[in-house]
């Protein structure tokens, strides 16, 4: 690994030298980085490290998941709720390849994660040895950085860099592949935390002139609209963000990953943008005169057709990653930097304002959405249960203090639309990759990182079965997560598309499901099934009151659709209400 010799870390010396094995060094590196919990699965090529974990089990908690994908999502859930780096570990070959989905998910959702994989001995590299796979090659396009370590002496620097890169700037996943001989080899260990890397500038400088120009546009705007993303949360900029929008009186909408940065009930919060977002912010995106994007990346699920996206508006983009500027939407003013510092500096430059008439437009459109969609979702008059009424009941009974970990599909969109959040870092879901199977393991990680918080997982009957084996982890670790499956006996989101765009040809979307209650009980998890509205309240109360993990299956209407909806290729303002 040549790069450790050539990259000059501006490091600070922390420890004295001691002679230990590479695998013990791995543990010591983790401890030096403040890691308390990691998720993983053992196998031949990583056994020396597991042997050390055994010795250090009083200092570091290794959680055995039931699949390496589960380990990655648990590490992600851990990172998303805590802001700390999630750590996972796997053996070589299939263990390592099983990490890829979670790594790709963390990459596209900017989640700080360090993955450690075992590798065959260095003398076997390239020989197609048993369980040898080129995981560095495979993971390259989905990692922020990765490397292979073939000598024990390279371990400290590799870990120092890995943690620094994972958590700094725009966070992301990194992977360290360690050959088995490097794990056994003894060397003189010292650890120096990485303080900087010559070729890597995590946070670009914020240009005062750009800030002033942005403030000028904002101050002159008659119809400003803020769309914020996860950058506000990752940058720990919630307070600065709130201060700016409150002072300038700007209606503010969120992307899925930005949700919960300010409370749902905040008067300036006008809801979610994007494909299944709220009517008002989507429609008014094409009427605002200044669009202020903060820590978001204009994903196609947010923008719909780019040719008709906010063409009338001047665009200001606050962003930490220079590569995002003008990537999808051409900006008029780019303010680079960390959201926290940029917004703090912006605050004195913006004028007080209230934009009352403009706010009224949002209220008017909300009324339309309420009549056409929300009312029927939350207060259904038909017999079948809706997903939204389950969310409503969870909101009531957790008083909006729960973290909601959702999977991917209709229930996810409903969860994001209707969950009420009081606290930041409360909406944990796979946004960019849309990984079914994310929720159950992510909820485990979230609950372990924030044991004092109520963590409610919401999954569909499809996605739940993609990582259902993690019930074993919950059982063994006694993680008190609340598991809600909204069972429509369909791959609902795909079925909705088949209904709307493929003439109801329901190809392979109907599911014959197992007895979920029996499965949960098989893991000694308390479980209940609700099929009627009258039982919903008590069932959710039982779930919330339960001290341990709890499984709740709710049979919902089989063929409900999620609206509003921007069909693919349509403009945000052509959002359909039915």
């Amino acid at each position: 690994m040549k790069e450790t010799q050539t990259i000059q870390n501006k490091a600070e010396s922390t420890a004295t030298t001691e002679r230990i094995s590479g695998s013990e060094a791995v543990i010591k590196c983790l401890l030096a980085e403040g890691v308390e919990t990691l998720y993983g699965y053992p196998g031949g090529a990583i056994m020396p490290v597991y042997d050390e974990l055994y010795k250090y089990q009083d200092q570091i908690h290794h959680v055995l998941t039931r699949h390496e994908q589960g380990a990655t999502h648990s590490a992600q859930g851990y990172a998303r709720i805590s802001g700390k780096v999630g750590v996972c570990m796997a053996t070589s070959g299939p263990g390592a390849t099983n990490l890829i989905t979670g790594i790709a998910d963390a990459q596209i959702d900017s989640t700080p994660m360090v993955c450690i994989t075992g590798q065959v001995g260095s003398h076997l590299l390239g020989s197609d040895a048993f369980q040898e796979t080129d995981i560095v090659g495979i993971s390259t396009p989905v990692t922020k950085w990765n490397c292979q370590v073939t000598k024990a002496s390279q371990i400290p620097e590799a870990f120092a860099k890995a943690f620094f890169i994972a958590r700094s700037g725009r966070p992301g996943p990194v992977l360290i592949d360690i050959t088995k001989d490097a794990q056994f080899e003894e060397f003189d260990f010292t650890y120096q935390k990485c303080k900087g890397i010559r070729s890597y500038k995590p946070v670009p400088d914020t240009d005062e002139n750009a800030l002033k120009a942005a403030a000028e546009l904002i101050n002159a705007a008659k119809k400003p609209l803020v769309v914020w993303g996860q950058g506000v949360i990752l940058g720990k900029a919630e307070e600065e963000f709130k201060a700016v929008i409150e002072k300038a009186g700007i209606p503010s909408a969120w992307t899925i990953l930005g949700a919960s940065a300010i409370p749902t009930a905040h008067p300036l919060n006008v809801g979610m943008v994007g494909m299944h977002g709220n009517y008002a912010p989507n429609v008014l995106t094409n009427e605002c005169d200044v669009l202020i994007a903060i820590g978001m990346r204009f994903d196609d699920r947010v923008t719909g057709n780019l040719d008709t996206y906010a063409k009338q508006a001047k665009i200001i983009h606050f962003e930490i990653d220079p590569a995002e500027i003008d990537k999808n939407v051409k900006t008029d003013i780019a303010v680079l930097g960390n959201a926290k510092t940029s917004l703090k500096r912006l605050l004195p430059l913006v004028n007080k304002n209230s934009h009352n008439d403009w706010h009224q437009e949002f209220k008017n459109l909300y009324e339309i959405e309420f009549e056409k969609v929300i009312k029927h979702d939350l207060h259904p008059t038909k017999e079948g249960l809706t997903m939204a009424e389950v969310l409503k009941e969870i909101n009531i009974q957790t008083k909006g203090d729960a973290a909601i970990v959702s999977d991917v599909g209709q229930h996810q969109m409903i969860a994001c639309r209707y969950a009420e959040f009081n606290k930041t870092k409360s909406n944990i879901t796979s946004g960019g990759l849309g990984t079914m199977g994310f929720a159950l393991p992510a909820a485990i990680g979230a609950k372990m990182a924030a044991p004092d918080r109520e963590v409610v997982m919401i999954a569909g009957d499809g996605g739940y079965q993609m990582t259902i084996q993690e019930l074993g982890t919950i059982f063994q670790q006694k993680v008190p997560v609340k598991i809600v499956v909204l069972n429509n006996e369909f791959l609902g989101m795909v079925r909705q598309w088949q209904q709307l765009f493929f003439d109801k040809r329901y190809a392979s979307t109907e599911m014959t499901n197992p007895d979920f209650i029996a499965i949960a009980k098989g893991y000694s998890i308390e479980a209940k099934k609700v099929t009627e509205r009258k039982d919903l309240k008590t069932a959710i109360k039982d779930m919330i009151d339960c001290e341990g993990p709890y499984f709740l299956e709710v049979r919902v209407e089989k063929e409900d659709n999620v609206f509003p909806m921007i069909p693919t290729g349509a403009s945000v303002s052509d959002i359909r209400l039915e």
Partner: protein
Amino acid sequence: MSTENKQFTISIYTENNIGLLNRISAIFQRRHINIESLNTSPSEIDGVSRFTIVVNITESQMKKIQGQIEKQVEVIKAFYHTEEEIIYQESCIFKMRSNLLFDERQIQNIIKESNARIVTVNRDFFVIEKSGRKEEIDLLHRELTVFGIMQFTRSGRIAVTKDEMKISSMLKALQH
């Protein structure tokens, strides 16, 4: 910004790293951008490598690609330039049958006029080397083709910019 394809020569200053070529080429591959030529070498700065990549894309694509390249942790800086902004060379070698040197006298003239040179001659074959601009090499290739070329290969482009790169001062600033 122009929506026409233009030829850009990209210069990337990087740390030496085994995996970096992979990361950089993947940026082009994902976007279906053909790499016309690629060269890696040491640079004017100790321990810093330089990639020189030639592509035909629009300027707005080019800007995005530059951002994606610079985003890589081990990339120090990426620049792109049009043909007018650089001095560049490519080089090529031809292997030809030795008897041609005596039977086809014009070959000597072609070599002279094109500023190519003979690197080696032996009983069976001789080798011509030429450095220059792409069109010059194309021309020489056309002229020699009629005599039968045993082997031909051409290098990636190498280029320096007419203006200063400012990379050294940047590195100094990073290092303190």
